[in-house]
């Protein structure tokens, strides 16, 4: 009668790993908090796989992303040899997507990093300075936020003409920091009145020292969440611009460029639209989920952001 299941159910469950062993650094603590929920686990796994696939693209890609395999053939649907089909010039779509993920992810993370740093510094300075400086700096942000970002980008592109990848990263980064600045400003403004900042000032620390040592580090939490959201936004934005023909210049493969390649023949070449699109959706979804979990981990009072 003493079957194992009964014994097993009576057995004391393994003690949860003490959090202290995992929280040696803030980073691993955050990772642990995100890993606790299933959605966070899936998102992290997906992103880890994606980054690994992007890094290993030269070894993973079954074909050369730039070489037409059969110049006369044209586009062919998914098959065993070409899982995601081939495009109009007979290039393997899976290989192009693998190489494309490198460009798309690099553009997104660099542009988001740039936007976060500029936003953190600008907003931090405004909030820390307070008074009229703060007011003037924030009125500029109000105006910049009133311009729809895509139109601001198109205006600059219309005036500048075509741009290369480096300029594109700069452009996307420099049109994305306004909301980060507003966030950082709110944090810095609240920090200004906190006791430890007042104490540091009373002890005679120079303003720039108080700013760098006490204000900036404490304002990075919300900015980290904003930066994560920004990565997801930029992946989609770059794909959209590339789709319009004003993003990463052809023939560099990016997810948006592959979709653009299939836009004239969408009726017969659905795989050129669907597969890169699914990669985009998966990435955007995973990044959003990570941002959501991150927000919950950094601000436990607001566990379930809408």
């Amino acid at each position, binding site marked *: 009668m003493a079957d194992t299941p009964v014994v097993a159910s009576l057995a004391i469950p393994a003690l949860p790993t003490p959090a202290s062993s995992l929280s040696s650094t803030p980073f691993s603590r955050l990772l642990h908090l995100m890993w606790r929920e299933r959605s966070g686990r899936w998102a992290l796994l997906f992103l880890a796989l994606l980054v690994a696939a992007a890094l290993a693209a030269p070894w993973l890609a079954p074909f050369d992303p730039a070489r037409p395999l059969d110049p006369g053939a044209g586009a062919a649907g998914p098959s065993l040899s070409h899982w995601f089909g081939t495009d109009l010039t007979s290039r393997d779509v899976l290989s192009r997507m693998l190489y494309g993920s490198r460009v798309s992810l690099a553009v997104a993370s660099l542009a988001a990093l740039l936007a976060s740093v500029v936003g953190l510094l600008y907003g931090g300075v405004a909030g820390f300075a307070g008074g009229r400086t703060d007011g003037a700096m924030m*009125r*500029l942000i*109000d*105006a*910049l*936020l*009133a*311009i*729809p*970002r*895509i*139109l*601001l980008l*198109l*205006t*600059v*592109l*219309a*005036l*500048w*003409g075509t741009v290369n990848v480096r300029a594109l990263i700069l452009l996307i980064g420099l049109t994305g920091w306004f909301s980060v600045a507003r966030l950082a400003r709110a944090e810095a403004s609240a920090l200004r009145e906190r006791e430890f900042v007042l104490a540091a000032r009373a002890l005679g620390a120079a303003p720039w020292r108080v700013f760098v040592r006490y204000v900036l580090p404490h304002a990075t939490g919300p900015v980290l969440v904003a930066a994560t959201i920004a990565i*997801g936004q930029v992946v*989609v934005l770059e*794909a*959209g611009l590339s*789709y*319009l*023909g*004003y993003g990463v210049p052809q023939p560099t493969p990016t997810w948006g460029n592959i*979709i653009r390649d299939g*836009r004239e023949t*969408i*009726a017969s070449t*659905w795989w050129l*639209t*669907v597969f890169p*699109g699914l990669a*985009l*959706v998966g990435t*955007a*979804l995973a990044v*959003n*989920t990570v941002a959501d979990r991150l927000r919950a981990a950094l601000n436990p009072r607001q566990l*379930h952001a*809408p």
Partner: protein
Amino acid sequence: MIAFLFRRLLQGVAILVTVATVTFVLIHAAPGEPFAGQLDDVRFTPAMQAELRRQRGLDQPLATQYVRYMGRLARGDLDVSLAQQRPVRTILAEALPRTLLLMSAALFGGFALGIVVGALQAARAGSWADRVAGRITVALAALPDFWLALTLLLLFSVRLRWFPVSGMVDPTMHEYLSPLGRLRDVAWHLALPATTMALIFAAVVARYQRQALLDVLPDDFVRSARAKGVSERGVVLRHALRNALLPTITLFGMALPALVGGSLFVEFIFAWPGMGRAAVEALSARDYPVVLGTTLVSSALVVVGSIVADLLAAAADPRLRRG
């Protein structure tokens, strides 16, 4: 209320002046001349280039140019299109109502659907249906609009042939239709582009609405409604929902800027002849006055939209009127 409106209008004007100044800086920070794309044409002799510069006032000091530029904008003059040789104002006056039609259909449909879905979810929070709807709304909210547009186009226009592939009216038949038939023709063409944007909005709205309802359901007034014997449906739909609409109204204001920019891809893909499409077409012709005009008009719409949203919020919540 009047003082509140007056203050918001003043702020709006200040924002627009700053936006115009930013665009002026952008024009002059551009490498070469703003119409350099046109000058690439070999037929432009140096004398003609100098003449063009003089005509555009580019030989004047920067301060003079700035005053002229702002004065021109204040009069509502948005310059002349380089590619089409007609005032940008005329081009945008044609395109704006079409964008507004698309936007209002998408806004109305998206918010109505979102509020209903969110309320139904909150009424059965934690149930199987709530969880499924939650998954769907999270995924939908993350969809890139241009990709959703392409997918709907592929599915419903190309494969199933239920809806037209592009445009706002049937290019040959529209002229010969009765007034009612013309209306139906436009609605027919409007269906897919509006649905694309409405779906994404509905997903975001549903998530906010669900959370807002769950926030008010533990309140005392909800308990008294229940104690009075109001049915559970009545409690959620009549008593709680009314108090949980404020976040949604705020969201409505935040949705406007996203719609002006967000309709760009949808307009481009469905060949909807609105402002977004005008901007993209002008960009391919390096016709910067049109792109710039679109940006200025869109920013003005954003400012107006945020004032409208504030007024709506004040109308819904008397506490905000004093603020």
